[in-house]
């Protein structure tokens, strides 16, 4: 997931980073093919260059040595809303076939089975970034046909529906521990590639609707040994985030 997410980033991107996998992916991209990648955090730090792995998006290592730090309102309005963020990373408890993401409740809003943390900045990242990348482990429960609650809009009502709502961009790829998926012309998920060693069945079983597989379905390229070394030895030497994915 980390290396695939990193490969989606371009050298001239300004990316709104989250902690965990997105942070590792962005730092990996910066050390490999995208040295000029600009990392912005929801907490308002612009072009952070953290010396060590931040514990949260408000960590002091993101502030020390940043190019600028702006108050939250300015970060969300003058940067994100104004279109200065190319790529946003999202995750959540559920994602559906249209790329809508739920990080609010499982079950009924007024009588929830599980109360999740809520949107934070996820809704505005999904609404205002030029592209969003979704990184999430794939299980049937996490991939229902429709999410219980739309916290962050994907292609609500298809690509046209999204455009009618004046939402910018939209999800570009969904990267899971099993596959890389993209969105077709109607704004619905399809599988582009399956990770090495896994089958179509394994991906379908972990999905709550009948998945479409690309006519050019391929195997996801295996991570480069140098990328694995960077992650294990330099970016996450204590295995804090790599462990969490298992």
């Amino acid at each position, binding site marked *: 997931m980390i290396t695939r997410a990193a490969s989606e980033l371009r050298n001239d991107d300004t990316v709104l980073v989250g902690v965990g996998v997105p942070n590792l992916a962005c730092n990996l991209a910066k050390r490999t093919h995208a040295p000029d990648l600009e990392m912005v955090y929801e907490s308002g730090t612009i072009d952070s260059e953290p010396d060590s792995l931040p514990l949260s998006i408000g960590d002091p290592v993101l502030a*020390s040595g940043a190019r600028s730090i702006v*108050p939250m309102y300015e970060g969300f309005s003058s940067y994100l809303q104004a279109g200065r963020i190319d790529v946003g990373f999202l995750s959540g408890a559920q994602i559906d076939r249209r790329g809508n993401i739920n990080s609010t409740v499982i079950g009924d809003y*007024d009588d929830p089975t599980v*109360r999740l943390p809520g949107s934070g900045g996820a809704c505005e990242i999904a609404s205002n970034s030029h592209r969003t990348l979704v990184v999430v482990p794939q299980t049937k429960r996490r991939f229902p046909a429709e999410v219980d609650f739309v916290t962050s*809009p994907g292609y609500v009502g298809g690509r046209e529906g999204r455009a009618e709502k004046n939402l910018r961009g939209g999800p570009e790829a969904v990267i899971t521990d099993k596959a890389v998926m993209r969105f077709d012309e109607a704004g619905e998920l399809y599988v582009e590639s399956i990770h090495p060693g896994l089958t179509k069945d394994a991906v379908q079983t972990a999905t709550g609707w009948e998945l479409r597989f690309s006519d050019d379905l391929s195997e996801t390229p295996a991570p480069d040994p140098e990328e694995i070394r960077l992650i294990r030895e330099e970016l996450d030497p204590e295995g804090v985030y790599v462990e969490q994915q298992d």
Partner: protein
Amino acid sequence: MTEQTTLESAIDAAVEDGQSLYLAGFSHLIPFASGHEIIRQGYTDLELVRATPDLIYDRMIAAGCASKATFSWAGNPGVGCLRAFRRAVEEGVPNPLEIEEYTHFGMVARLKAGAQKLPFVPLRTFAGSDLPEYNDKIRTVADPFSDDGENEGEDVHVVPPLEPDTAVVRAQRADADGNAQLWGIVGETVDAALAAETVVLSVEQVVDESVIRSDPNRTMIPGTAVDYVVEIPYGSHPSYVQGYYDRDNPSYVEWDEVSETHESTLDWLDEWVYEVTDHREYLEKLDAERLLDLQPQPDYAEPIDMGDYS
């Protein structure tokens, strides 16, 4: 007039049962000592407002201080969920907790409206999300300039002003009049101070006015907005203060276990809040070694030249 006083008397004067209360801070500069003092003084029926309610609101909820939470992300940053918050929402323990929910942008836009005394602030978020369906303070207005030919009559989401009865905000330093300088992640601290009716400013250091005047661009909270100034070193522990001390991460991880049941949470509150008289006693109990370990190496910014034009 700003009054420099003790934390106990500032909280006693500024906080009342039933108020809306904003303890500001985005991971950084969180007023933990003030939150503990509010718990000790036994307030109830508070509306706890904040973009990122974290451990301190979890403690206040478990202590029975709150009847409502207004927020945008309720979690233990970098660790997981807020267990006491979830118990209150899911099971009504220790009492039911009403919630009013926004996104981060929605919350800080509400503060911006409050700070500017505007009836609402427009923002491009919420379209396509289910949030407006469950919060009737998130509404839309038609673009009032849509008839001048250039705009297409777009509806835009708006949120109303948020003007908390009391805000408690923290900064690195201030003078005795409450002119406060802060650096590092600013979050929503300044807007919370400007939006609230009454403001308690808690700082690491009260400094001479000349220190503040030497670097005016860094003064983000004006003393005119501040009612009470209190000097509380380490007043944000276990959160952090840029340049002073780091986040005490084991405390955040421990809270996940401590708060596993309501009973174990109350035991912790007994030991660390009710049975200590003030923040100084809390720090002594915590042990100086632990605090010293959190201190970063100095890393000074380049001095700037304001110029002497006399």
